[in-house]
């Protein structure tokens, strides 16, 4: 199982090499095989006698982060969706993406996404789950921005990243909370200790943060705004990530945690409340769109809202309906995205106002589209799967357990009406999508390309999905017992024994379906009369404005702050850096009691040293007041020569010699260059700057003095110098210990020192020799 998850990652390493020969073999052919292998591996688990499987692989045991995979019905449903749709999408992309595109990049992102998505739905360890979760956000970001020369792509990818990562971090907070209070990182063990979580004082926070992660990922209102902009991605990506798999990760997370949270009444209020608002709002918004993929994006959002609402109900029937709808939605929405891609590919336009009458040009595509859209609309026909799950949804809104929470009770009462209201618009946009594109008057002259039927290879993938729609529609029991009921059981926590019928007799859900059909048809037929309303609402209420405003403000403020201290003045940077050193070091030394003072073990005091010291200090101070270049340089020399005298006194003959030579050369160098440098100006700094400089430099000097005294006064461990004294002759064969250390024991350091000097010399040579030529280039 580990191999199945890692296979896409391993394969992605080889993609860049395969992409080099894309002119001979389209890279997509190799990529199609990967999800197919994964799919064939997991499909063997389907069966009536399925039992959850656990596999453990150690990864970072010290952090309790292990690759613990847990495959139950819910995971199996998602794994098969990811690998199954993945195969079809990869195959479809072979025809969709031309060889001149950067296929290597596309398929690497694609495979990374697939592997991480498999990781999300299989991990039992919450932190491993979180890592994979963020990987899906990242690969989604890369895929949306695939055509990065387009402004819309860049905007859309950044938007999706900001929103989903914001949610991901909130989710991480919740996961950390839960793992701390239950003292485990395994989801299954958390479920076993659910009373601890439910009764914890921070429970509202845990629930809220987790749902924030799920809502942002699954594009629930008001975080749905990133999904329509994500449609800038190539259509195979939209079909795969932004319809069938990634956006369902939030659904998965909620479903995974239902065994814990469903007992809280607030879970129902929040999840179902937001779900139903999303359903209504997005299905209304879908009607306003003019871009085919825009319609599908809002449609996806509203369907996700519907699934979310059903999960929130928490009843057996609702959960079964939700699971069933996850599968159905993947089949009809996946094929519709591919149809939209075909229309775009073959006509050059996705604008529904320009399209129309394509049925005569693309009969096969139109047939696929009609089946998928009618299934999406929940049209009552016995061979469309959409109707079954829509009917279950209506049924579920009618049967609730009694609740004591007033808000929950109120929500239960209005839910059936809201569900019907949302579904009416679902019906409207489904019809709008099909009739607007394929029926009506054809205006071929306005289209960029002359429309014609798509190549057969492009039709295979949507055809397989539509076949799924029909097969599930005709024989729903085929997938019930071996597959769907396991998934529902793993969420519900007990056996789910449901039967799927087409005909229930005349009951309330059927009447609701008929009402949707009737009102929907009226709205479709009188569409032109409603146009002004569609254009008027939402206007300024849009969440996009809020997002844009936030991003813009964040940018302006951060720019202001950065410009506030990064003003390009080097002097100012020095002051800031030095002040920071002062504050941190003083703070640290004082808080740890590091400053010590002791007069022990000090060398005796002699007049000559004092004399040299005073001379050096006076000379050093002189460099500040000197206004003559030559004077300043010579005074600097005094300091250096004074130091070499000190080296003599302190028994360091090598240092004294070196210092003497270096000081001489340095002074000579100063004297050579000073002539080319402007004269020292009389300083005209404001008084306050002078004072500030003085404070900083005095502070720094004091700090160094105190550190020197403290380090001399405290002895933490024995000096290692005795080793060098003892072994200098034995190992190095030299009497001069300092020399032996330099050339022998620390020889490599000296080598690097020589290298540094060499680089400096090269740099100096370059600066002197290289001159600008007449054109101004170097």
């Amino acid at each position, binding site marked *: 199982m580990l191999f199945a998850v890692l296979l896409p990652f391993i394969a992605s390493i080889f993609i860049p090499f395969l992409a080099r020969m894309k002119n001979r073999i389209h890279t997509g052919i190799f990529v199609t095989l990967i999800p197919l292998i994964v799919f064939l591996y997991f499909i063997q688990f389907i069966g009536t006698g399925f039992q959850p499987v656990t596999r453990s692989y150690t990864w970072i045991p010290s952090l309790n982060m292990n690759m613990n995979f847990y495959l139950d019905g819910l995971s199996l449903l998602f794994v098969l969706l990811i690998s199954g749709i993945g195969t079809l999408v990869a195959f479809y992309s072979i025809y969709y993406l031309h060889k001149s595109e950067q296929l290597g990049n596309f398929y690497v992102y694609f495979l990374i996404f697939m592997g991480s998505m498999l990781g999300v739905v299989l991990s039992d360890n919450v932190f491993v789950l979180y890592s994979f979760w963020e990987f899906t956000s990242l690969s989604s970001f890369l895929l949306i921005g695939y055509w990065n020369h387009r402004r819309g792509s860049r905007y859309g990818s950044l938007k999706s990243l900001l929103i989903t990562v914001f949610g991901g971090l909130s989710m991480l907070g919740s996961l950390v909370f839960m793992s701390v209070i239950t003292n485990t990182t395994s989801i299954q063990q958390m479920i076993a200790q659910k009373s601890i979580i439910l009764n914890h004082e921070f429970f509202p926070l845990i629930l809220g943060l987790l749902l924030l992660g799920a809502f942002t990922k699954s594009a629930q209102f008001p975080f749905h705004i990133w999904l329509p902009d994500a449609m800038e991605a190539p259509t195979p990506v939209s079909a795969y990530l932004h319809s069938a798999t990634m956006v369902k990760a939030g659904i998965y997370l909620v479903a995974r945690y239902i065994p814990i949270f469903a007992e809280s009444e607030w879970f129902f209020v929040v999840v179902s409340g937001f779900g139903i608002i999303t359903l209504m709002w997005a299905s209304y918004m879908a009607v306003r769109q003019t871009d085919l993929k825009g319609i599908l994006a809002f449609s996806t959002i509203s369907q996700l809202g519907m699934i979310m609402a059903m999960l929130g109900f928490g009843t057996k029937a609702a959960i079964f309906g939700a699971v069933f709808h996850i599968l159905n939605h993947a089949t009809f929405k996946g094929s519709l995205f591919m149809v939209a891609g075909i229309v775009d590919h073959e006509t050059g336009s996705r604008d529904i106002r320009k399209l129309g009458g394509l049925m005569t040009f693309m009969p096969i595509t139109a047939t696929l589209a009609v089946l998928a859209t009618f299934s999406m609309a929940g049209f009552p026909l016995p061979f469309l799967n959409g109707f079954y799950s829509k009917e279950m949804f209506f049924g579920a809104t009618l049967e609730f357990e009694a609740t004591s929470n007033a808000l929950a009770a109120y929500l239960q009462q209005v839910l059936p009406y809201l569900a019907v209201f949302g579904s009416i618009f679902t019906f409207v946009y489904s019809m709008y999508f099909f009739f607007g594109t394929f029926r009506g008057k054809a205006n071929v002259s306005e289209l960029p390309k002359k429309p014609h039927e798509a190549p057969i290879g492009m039709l295979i993938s949507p055809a397989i999905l539509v076949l799924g729609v029909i097969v599930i529609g005709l024989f729903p029991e085929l997938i019930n017992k071996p597959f769907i009921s396991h998934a529902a059981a793993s969420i519900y926590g007990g056996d789910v024994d449901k039967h799927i019928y087409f005909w229930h007799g005349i009951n309330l859900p059927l009447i609701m379906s008929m009402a949707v059909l009737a009102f929907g048809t009226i709205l479709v037929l009188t569409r032109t009369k409603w146009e002004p309303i569609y254009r008027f609402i939402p206007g300024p209420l849009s969440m996009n404005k809020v997002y844009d405003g936030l991003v813009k403000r964040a940018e302006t403020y951060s720019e202001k702050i950065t410009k506030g201290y990064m003003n390009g003045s080097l002097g100012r940077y020095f002051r800031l850096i030095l002040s920071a050193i002062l504050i941190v070091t003083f703070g640290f030394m004082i808080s740890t009691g590091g400053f010590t003072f002791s007069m022990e073990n000090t060398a005796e005091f002699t007049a000559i040293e004092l004399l040299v010291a005073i001379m050096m200090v006076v000379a050093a101070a002189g460099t500040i007041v000197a206004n003559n270049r030559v004077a300043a340089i010579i005074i600097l020399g005094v300091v250096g020569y004074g130091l070499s005298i000190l080296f003599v006194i302190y028994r360091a003959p090598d240092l004294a010699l070196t210092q003497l030579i270096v000081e001489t050369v*340095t002074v000579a160098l100063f004297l050579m260059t000073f002539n080319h440098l402007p004269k020292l100006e009389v300083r005209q700094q404001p008084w306050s700057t002078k004072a500030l400089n003085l404070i900083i430099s005095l502070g720094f000097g004091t700090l160094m003095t105190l550190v*020197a005294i403290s380090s*001399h006064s405290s002895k933490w461990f024995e*000096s290692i110098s005795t080793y060098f004294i003892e072994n200098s002759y034995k190992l190095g064969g030299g009497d001069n210990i300092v020399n032996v250390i330099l050339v022998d024991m620390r020889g490599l350091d*000296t080598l690097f020192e020589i290298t540094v000097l060499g680089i400096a010399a090269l740099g100096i040579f370059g600066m002197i020799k290289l001159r600008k030529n007449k054109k101004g280039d170097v």
Partner: protein
Amino acid sequence: MEIIMSIVAGLLFTTGVYNLLQKQLLRIAIGTALISHGAHLFILTMGGLKGGAPPILVEGIEHYTDPLPQALILTSIVISFGVTSFLLVLAYRASEANGTDNIEQLRGNDYE
């Protein structure tokens, strides 16, 4: 004596930093030179002064001054020489190319 030498090192740092905070490149070069002097004295003082004979092995002598700080300082002297000379030539070329040695006027182009 160590206390006094610590104070001297501190004063060298003070004057060095003060020079470093000035605007003219020549003063900045002088500042870095002073700071390196201060650092050398600082290292030497921390190792203890006059702990014994110069660190050259002679028969019959038991106590030597700590050779390790001296080895470090020797490396440092050479490196700081490299830095100072590089800085000087940089200052010379920069002022020649730009017509000024005032770092406040040597700012890069304004953002955007």
